[in-house]
């Protein structure tokens, strides 16, 4: 019998076997990060790290011989703030002299210092305990002077030595990214992952270089550094996002992180996305909501216990610790507020002077507190729309990204304050935010990165696709496109609509304005037919869309319901979308062959109708081709060609 021990399995993950793509999507924020991978179901999903956290705090803490990374490190902010590093992402790739003085000295975490050896390099200095050198192994050779007292046991380990450790910003980022990647590797059970990492739009090339280097040092192959807006667009253009939304839409991405607000207005044309306008500000962020909430609970604590507690800013060391404790506790409160309509509690043991605190806040009070932040966001949105010359009513969808954007109050405030249409699509309206739905603002970016990573991994690595791959590199070519100026569509002439709309029929937009060329769109709809003559006609028009503002005095409404006659007549703006015909490009006429008579007792009974398919193709030259055909075998067909402008 063989005596060689055979290990029963191994802890090292195999690099093959599982069919999950070896991809991790990393949303690397300044305050929180999240990771997403493909699950067995074939969908990208945000996964939890070893601590069970999906929202992983960007913090590293050194406590004696231990190193804490993530949410555990934030707890160290209470008593071990000097050895806890936070906010390190934004310092990536920056020189020490470039960092403003206000960011260097922080009372909440380890300060940024000039690296002692490398010139103009920011670094952190932390106190650690270095393990003492390990003792000599017990001697195996029996000494000539073996005495009965000699022991085979190792010499006891000596005490660890206190030491100082200098870490560059890049090292800190590498440590943190490595921990994220390790979580993903453990989940997938394979090593050597490819990663797509988000970067804020404001990052400079040097910063992107630094991030890429930090990630490479952490042992991942960076496939692409993706703009946060881009990562969001990947998720929102995927099939699972919302099937009922049109493929051509204008989308506003509201990214409210803890320290900044980024707004991006995107034009999404059947999956192709480009930025119409964007803005970024660090003056608005979730931290402000935190501060207000901390002050609220501190005041409540003082009221309940008669113990003075001055926070935000706190000067006394006891107050500072109390603030740090509250800051940790309200994380839970905010999540409760986001998830459920009821009141949320905040409990801190031994907040100050050994007194416990338990308080609660309901959603109304919370929204009242956060109102200034909401308004600031709404103002920023208004400013952005104005700069892009897009009316709020032309924005079809709002997408929320970031932890603070999970608050339902923000959605409500934004729709009313910034003047969006009532029926604007939002994840809140669809109810996909809570319960790990697809619209969860905290996971949108990471999932987008994972999807993008899988897509990039699917491009074959050969000569033919070299150019394709190059387009995904930084500063890649081939992404600059031509776009249409006006919307092109078909007008189905009809009597009834003539009076009201003034267009003389039903307007069906086919290729929207700002669509990248070449473009092809196919729409399908029903057309009613006359009993005797199955004639069909489609006029092809180029149109401009505008918003007509109608002012209706509230008095008119008050008359309608006589309950409140004392209301002052107030002007209310009602916005209507308007379409103006610009250029007539031609018409397609034909006789339908496949009319079907509706039977039954419905109101449509006895009417004949047929289904037609209209396909518009606009070449890069600007030439237009319209093909109209009846759906079904042997259906009628017609087409229209409009040569390129200038031809």
């Amino acid at each position, binding site marked *: 019998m063989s005596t060689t021990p055979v290990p029963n399995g191994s802890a090292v993950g195999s690099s093959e076997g599982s069919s999950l793509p070896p991809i991790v999507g990393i949303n690397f924020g300044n305050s929180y990060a999240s990771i997403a991978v493909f699950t067995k179901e074939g969908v990208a999903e945000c996964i939890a790290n070893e601590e069970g956290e999906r929202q992983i705090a960007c913090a590293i803490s050194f406590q004696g011989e231990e190193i804490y990374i993530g949410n555990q490190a934030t707890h160290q902010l209470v008593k071990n703030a000097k050895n806890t590093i936070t906010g390190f992402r934004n310092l990536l790739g920056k020189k020490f002299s470039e960092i403003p003085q206000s960011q260097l000295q922080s009372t909440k975490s380890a300060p940024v210092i000039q690296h002692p050896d490398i010139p103009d390099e920011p670094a952190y200095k932390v106190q650690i305990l270095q393990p003492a050198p390990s003792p000599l192994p017990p001697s195996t050779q029996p000494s000539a002077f073996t005495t009965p007292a000699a022991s085979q046991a190792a010499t006891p380990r000596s005490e660890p030595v206190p030491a100082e450790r200098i870490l560059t910003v890049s090292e800190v980022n590498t440590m943190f990214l490595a921990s994220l990647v390790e979580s993903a590797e453990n989940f997938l059970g394979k090593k050597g992952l490819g990663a797509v990492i988000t970067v804020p739009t404001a990052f400079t090339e040097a910063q992107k270089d630094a991030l890429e280097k930090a990630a490479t040092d952490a042992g991942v192959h960076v496939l692409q550094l*993706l*703009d946060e*807006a881009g*990562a969001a*667009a*990947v998720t929102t253009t995927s099939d699972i996002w919302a099937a009922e939304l049109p*493929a051509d839409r204008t989308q506003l991405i509201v990214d409210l992180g803890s320290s900044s607000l980024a707004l991006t207005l*995107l*034009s999404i044309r*059947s999956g*192709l*996305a480009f*930025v119409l306008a964007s803005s970024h500000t660090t003056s608005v962020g979730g931290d402000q909501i935190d501060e207000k909430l901390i002050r609220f609970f501190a005041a409540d604590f003082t009221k309940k216990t008669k113990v003075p507690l001055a926070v935000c800013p706190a000067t006394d060391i006891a107050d500072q610790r109390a603030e740090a404790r509250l800051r940790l506790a309200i994380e839970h409160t905010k999540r409760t507020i986001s998830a459920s309509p009821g009141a949320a509690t905040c409990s801190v043991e031994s907040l100050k002077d050994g007194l416990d605190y338990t308080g609660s806040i309901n959603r109304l009070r919370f929204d009242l507190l956060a109102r200034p932040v909401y308004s600031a966001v709404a103002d920023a949105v208004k400013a952005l729309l104005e700069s892009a010359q897009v009316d709020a009513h032309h924005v079809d969808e709002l997408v929320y990204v970031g932890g603070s954007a999970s608050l339902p109050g923000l959605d409500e405030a934004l729709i009313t304050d910034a003047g969006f249409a009532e029926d604007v699509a939002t994840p809140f309206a669809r109810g996909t935010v809570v319960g790990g739905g697809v619209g969860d603002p905290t996971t949108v970016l990471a999932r*987008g990165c994972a*999807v*993008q990573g899988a*897509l990039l991994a699917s491009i074959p690595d050969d000569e033919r696709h070299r150019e*394709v791959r190059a387009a995904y590199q930084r500063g*890649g070519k*081939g*992404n*600059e*496109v*031509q*776009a249409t*100026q006006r919307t092109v569509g078909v007008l*189905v*002439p*009809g009597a009834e*609509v003539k009076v009201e709309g003034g267009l003389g*029929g039903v307007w*069906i937009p086919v290729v929207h304005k700002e669509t*990248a060329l070449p473009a*092809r*769109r*196919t729409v*399908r*709809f029903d057309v*009613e037919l006359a009993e005797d*003559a199955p004639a*069909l*006609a489609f*006029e092809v028009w180029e149109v401009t869309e505008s918003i007509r503002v109608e002012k209706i005095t509230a008095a008119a409404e008050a008359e309608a319901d006589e309950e409140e006659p004392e209301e002052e007549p107030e002007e209310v703006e009602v916005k209507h979308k308007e379409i103006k015909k*610009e*250029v*007539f*490009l031609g*018409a397609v*006429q034909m006789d339908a062959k496949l009319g079907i008579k509706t039977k039954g007792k419905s109101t449509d009974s006895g009417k004949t*109708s047929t289904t037609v398919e209209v396909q518009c193709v*606009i*070449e*890069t030259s*600007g*030439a237009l081709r319209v093909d109209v055909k009846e759906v079904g075998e042997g259906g009628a067909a017609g087409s229209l060609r*409009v*040569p*390129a*402008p200038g*031809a």
Partner: protein
Amino acid sequence: MATIQTLPITAPVLPKGYTPPAASSSSRLSAPHPTGHRVLLPVGQAHLNHLKLALHHAHDFDSFDAHLATEREAKAKLLASEAGLEDDLGVGDEEETPELLALDPKEWKKQDHYAVLGLSKFRYKATADQIKIAHRKKVLKHHPDKKASSTPAETILGINVNTNDDAFFKCIQKAHEVLTNAEKRRQFDSVDPAFLDAEEELTSVTATEFKNKKLDFFKTFTPIFELYERFSRVQPVPGLGTIDATKAEVEGFYDFWYNFDSWRSFEWWDKEVNEGSDSRDDKRYTEKKNKSERARRKKEDTAKLRGLVDLTLSLDPRIKMIKQAEKEAREAKKAAAQPGKPAKKTKAQEEEEKRKAEEEARKKEEEEKAARAEAKKAKAAAANAAKKARRQQRAAEEAAAAS
């Protein structure tokens, strides 16, 4: 693959007397925003498609559509191969007709065992592994434990296919039993219903019919021999070949088929001995009957095949060609034998050699024929002897029984 947007719109009736507005021939789309007006975010499948469209297909949608279609096909194939990681050796899934599911296990002798296991496309070619896999598949699907589901009863042609009824499962087990036993499988293959159908269809051809309808020789007879080749104990079996087969090939073919060694047997159609009867006589009587019936069938089968080979030989255009060639050779030789033609001597010699060879071959054939006839005679004699022996034995037995 253009995505089609379906709009919930019903456009109204075209007004009577509608005339489209006059289109000026110079009306064009407004010029698009120039390149660089917008920069696409390099994200998503749509962007990748856009890139490929621009870089590989010169903005041509049709060419790109074709490319996508082939890519999709390749992907589907890959997925299928991945999904079927456990290679089922091509057993796949065959459709189960209601008639099949309604089979009565009591009538198992009449069922098509290959169809029951979903192996109709392999039949006698199915390997033991394939039978094993197919059986496992069917059992997983039709095991009575799986059938006892709470779903409402589903009926096809008035037969409840979703009950606890394990009739079809019994059929599966019977089919497995038959097909995994080499002897039973041989018996079943001998009278495989699919073979019988094909045989009936293909071998109905007669010489007159063949001539009247001016059928193609090879198209008519190749499938017949392909059908019968399964019964040969000697494999591989020479096929009918083509019109330009060599003489040796043609002769080899007829040689083989005249000496066809078949394993076909007809035990499958044996009459069952009456279950209830204990009578030894009954049993013996049935056995005897079965035996003679089997022998008769086998004889019929051999005769039929021989008839087919005869028919083929008589209609084979290659035989005619060979005979023609021989005749020409003879004449040529005759001509060469006449004096005054020395120039052709060498050729004549060649012909002579050829003729000799042919003669030898013919002689051989004749010898073989004789040998066959002898063998036949011997066989008949042996059969007679056996019969005699049996008769004697029986007589002895009867005598013993009587005493």
